[in-house]
């Protein structure tokens, strides 16, 4: 799964720690999400997309391989 988390976070002038605090997760989770190493649950995906006033589909993009 790909996402626009890093560019949106940087655009909003937030640090990984700020985003982690707002989403109620650890900084390591934000790092893993930005690197595309971790696919979030539907709850976290919803929370993150709401933080940026986007829909889940706008923030997360499912790759053709389907992972």
């Amino acid at each position: 799964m790909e996402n626009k988390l890093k560019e949106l976070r940087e655009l909003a002038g937030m640090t990984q720690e700020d985003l982690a605090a707002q989403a109620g997760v650890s900084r390591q989770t934000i790092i893993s999400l930005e690197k595309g190493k971790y696919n979030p649950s539907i709850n976290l995906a919803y929370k993150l997309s709401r933080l940026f006033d986007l829909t889940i589909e706008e923030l997360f993009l499912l790759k053709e391989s389907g992972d």
Partner: protein
Amino acid sequence: MNQKKSLVVKYLVLSILGLIAIWQIASGKYDFGVGLLAGLIIAGTALGIKNKRLSKMFEKGMNPYDERVWMIAGKASYLSLRIFAITCALIVLAGSVWGPAVQVNPYNLLGICLSVLMLLYIFCYYYYNRKM
């Protein structure tokens, strides 16, 4: 159980183990008593450092036990249990075929098994932590 209650229980367990260590030293079992006491000091210090770090994270609004951590813990538990079970089965199989007679203290054996399982879990946890 909230973090404060869990911390009280952990320190209570450490205190009880500390009393057992002192009792063992007093009754002449120096090796076991000193070993236990050294382990407790290390575990207590590590627990203190960990709690300080966790408190800072909670204060900032972060959750150190988020969904990713639970997923890693679940995967690590499953993998370590599988490795442990397969290894035990192979040892039992080899022992049953060749059957070398070994005399062991059951408490030592249980302690070794527990340590191996814990170490396996730690390795598996770090493996998935790097992977995810």
